[in-house]
């Protein structure tokens, strides 16, 4: 089998691209610590409402420009259904579900996680631009799945 | 009768093939599928058990290990008798084939019988697959213990029962003189399946009862 020069160049180029992609991938996830939504712990799903922090769903300020949002997914809505945070703040979502698996997708961002009963999921994001985002349940959760919306409002920083 | 006529079609291997007759190759491929089936079952068992060690009682606390150890021995013996049956027909020993097949059937049925006996006792003790009833029974461990137990051993038991059925079929054919050293595809095929089911049990016995 003869390989022409141009073919050889293409093969080397694509192999190099692949290696570069995979190298960047492992570097970013292992060395830079860029992770996908992670499993943060376990919880008894029948007793969520009595287990801190889920006994108080809502927005909690934990430091200067730092917020924690405790989110519960249930059929068919989010608690809280409306989240207000000032622009430029760093927000950590701590979430779980009380009944079945739900989705938590803040539209227009890469915030997307499954809310899994029995599992706590943690996500962090910085909201710089003021505006309004839709929160969507993207995981089919039964007859009222289409009603499961929430809103995230990023207000002008004070 | 020509040589070709004594060779059933399923024992002919055309020229570019593997040189294994179709039935045997088919059984091997089927066993590949079975390997995947039991791998998924056993793998799930291992994962569930690692994730929820509190659901599983210590060996011997709920399950009757000595009884099942004897049962395991019986099943291993049945593999030996199956080998003997195959060896007999390889030497055209019709009487030996029938005797050893019968022995295998008796041992296999004993295994299934002991398993049924064990199930009845366990159910009477409240060791049931229903999670709610299990919790109410107050047995050690949690509901995952009983449900995985019945799933693993139950599906294996069904395989043994199917194997006994196949062996009875082979025995009836043997009594009609269907096999000889030149036509033993049926005996070999069922034998392969039987040894596979045995092998699975050794793994199951180890992880379900002993560990």
């Amino acid at each position, binding site marked *: 089998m003869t390989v022409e020069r141009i073919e050889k160049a293409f093969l080397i180029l694509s192999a190099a691209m692949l290696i570069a992609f995979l190298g960047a991938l492992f570097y970013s996830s292992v060395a830079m610590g860029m*992770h996908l939504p992670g499993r943060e712990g376990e919880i008894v799903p029948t007793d969520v409402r009595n287990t801190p922090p889920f006994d108080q769903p809502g927005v909690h300020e934990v430091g200067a420009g730092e917020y924690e949002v405790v989110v519960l997914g249930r059929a068919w809505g989010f608690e809280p259904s409306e989240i207000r945070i000032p622009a430029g703040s760093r927000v950590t979502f701590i979430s779980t579900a009380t009944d079945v698996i739900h989705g938590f997708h803040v539209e227009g961002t890469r915030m997307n996680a499954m809310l899994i009963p029995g599992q706590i999921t943690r996500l962090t994001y910085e909201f710089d631009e003021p505006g309004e985002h839709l929160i969507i349940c*993207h995981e089919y959760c039964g007859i009222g799945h289409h009603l499961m919306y929430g809103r995230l409002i990023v207000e002008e920083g004070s | 009768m020509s040589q070709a006529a004594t060779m059933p079609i399923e024992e002919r291997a055309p020229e570019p093939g593997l040189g294994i007759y179709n039935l045997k190759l088919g059984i091997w491929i089927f066993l590949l599928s079975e390997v995947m089936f039991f791998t998924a079952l056993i793998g799930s068992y291992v994962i569930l058990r690692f994730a929820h060690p509190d659901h599983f009682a210590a060996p011997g606390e709920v399950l009757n290990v000595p009884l099942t150890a004897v049962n395991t021995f019986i099943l291993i013996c049945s593999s030996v008798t199956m080998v003997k049956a195959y060896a007999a027909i390889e030497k055209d020993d019709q009487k030996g084939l029938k005797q050893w097949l019968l022995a295998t059937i008796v041992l296999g049925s004993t295994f299934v019988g002991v398993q049924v006996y064990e199930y009845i006792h366990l159910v009477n003790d409240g060791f049931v697959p229903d999670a709610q009833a299990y919790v109410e029974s107050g047995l050690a461990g949690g509901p995952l213990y009983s449900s995985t137990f019945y799933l693993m051993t139950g599906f294996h038991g069904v395989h043994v029962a199917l194997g006994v059925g196949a062996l009875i079929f082979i025995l009836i054919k043997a009594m009609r003189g269907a096999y000889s050293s030149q036509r033993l595809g049926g005996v070999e095929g069922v034998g392969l399946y039987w040894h596979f089911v045995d092998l699975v049990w050794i793994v199951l016995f180890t992880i379900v009862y002993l560990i």
Partner: protein
Amino acid sequence: MSVQIENDPDTHAEETGIWSWITTVDHKRIALMYFATSLIFFLIAGAQAILIRIQLFRPANDFLSAEVYNEFFTMHGTSMIFLVAMPMAVAFFNFVVPLQIGARDVAFPRLNALSYWIYLLGGLYLTSSFFFGAAPDRAWTGYANLTLPQFSPGLNMDFWLIGLSIVGISSIMGGVNFITTIINMRAPGMKLMRMPLFTWMTLVTSFLLVTAVPIISVALIFLGFDRIFGAAFFDPARGGDPVFWQHLFWLFGHPEVYILILPAFGAISDIIPTFSKKPLFGYPIVVYAGILIGFIGWGVWSHHMFTVGLGPFADSFFIAATMIIAIPTGVKIFNWLGTMWGGSIRFTTAMLFSVGLLAVFTIGGLSGIMHASAPVNLQQHDTYFVVAHFHYVIVGGTMMGLWAALYYWFPKAIGRYLDETLGKWHFWTTLIGLNLTFFPMHFAGLYGMPRRIFTYPEGLGLEIWNQLSTVGAVIFGLSGLIMTWNVIQSYRKGERAPADPWGASSLEWALPSPPHHYNFPNIPTVRSREPLWDEEERREVEGVTMAPPKAEPHMPNPSYWPFLLAASITLSWALVMTGIWWVIALGMIPTATCVFMWAFEPAFPEGAEH
């Protein structure tokens, strides 16, 4: 040396009537039944899709109720995959593979008939759920814990899980049969590396079937234990784990994707060389790429689950594997292009569909690679972008490939051409319809439209994309009707086709159209990869295949046990729904009886010379 034959074997082929179809073990007849059945399921599932699209035409629509909508999208997905795409591919496996490798039938003809009857009855069982008002309604992925009895009371999901496990048996048996056939029953000289690509891809697909389907069976058994016997495998409240279902499902589900696409790849790898008048460019590479896809397909399942939270190492591994699996697929696309390069191309309908596949599948493949990147995946997970992606792959890949195969092999199977004018109409309505349906879904997804919603509120910017999709779906539906009409008309009075209507290279074209019921009067010897493209070899092959048989072909007996066994298996499985152990045990009796009767029935005529 020629032997006088007392009974002309061809007379058996003329047997007609419903009984001859029920008892047939002839792979060609089984193939026709497979195709007809999957076509009917295609029309049913397609009608469901159109109704879904009408419902989504405008915001806050109430054309369907939410219950019916959920049943429709669940049954649309389940049927299209398990009752249409897979069995339609099996129809072609059945018809083409024995002819391509020079065999008179498959290795286990009765098992083959059993596969078909189980598929038919299992499919009917699944579809019959509509008549009980209990059609499955929890999506084709059946994610636990939504499928547990607390959240899904009623028989809906029992129908789903039992129906799928019945159909799964048929797939495993089909896989065993085709692997054995291809490995063991090739004509002399047909080495592995001389096999036509369609046969090769059948082999790879069969291995995937045999290894992947048991895993979904196990998942369904777990779910059945939860639903019917009250176990708690997927119930987090009682120690189970819902994510465990997702792992099992996608461990099966991703190889399943390749089960769907590889037959189409195989078909167009035979069709493109024929209509380019050139041997396949880089044959060994295409074969190895196919095998490689089959292997790597096992290592990518968790890219369906990036939102679950699996940990950095697991996520990175699955990202890498997903990028890597794109390579063999890309290689194949370049090989097909290389085959056409400089060839004298004839754009018959079969060729149009093959070229269409290259274009449309590539769009789906590219959006697939986008999903390999986890951050992109996160934004699109379970939005309409994903719906667009997999419809491009399955409709633009699998279905286009199968339709190419239909136009290509129909003349061989029936002895008549499919009408080419209607065929062109079919092609263009398909191409326009599917792009108009699925391309706007990318945008709907990017605008944040989640999957599986019954309706959507006004003012989110989703209206226009959904309206375009609905219009496209109607056009696409029309293309299905054109094809059905074409098949029916051409079957009855299409133009007669000669033995080799396309000037193709593989063995099946050396037989009359339609072939004898015993396929090859005498088994030819093969000396090359394209036996009919070498003039000398073609004369040699046709000298054998067009001559009367030298000895009476030894064909298997017809049998009604496959049908009865399939019926009793379906009955036995259906009785599991009761959840009463002694009913289940009694229900196994007819199955056991049929197995014994089957085993005692001789597969071949007694005392015949082989």
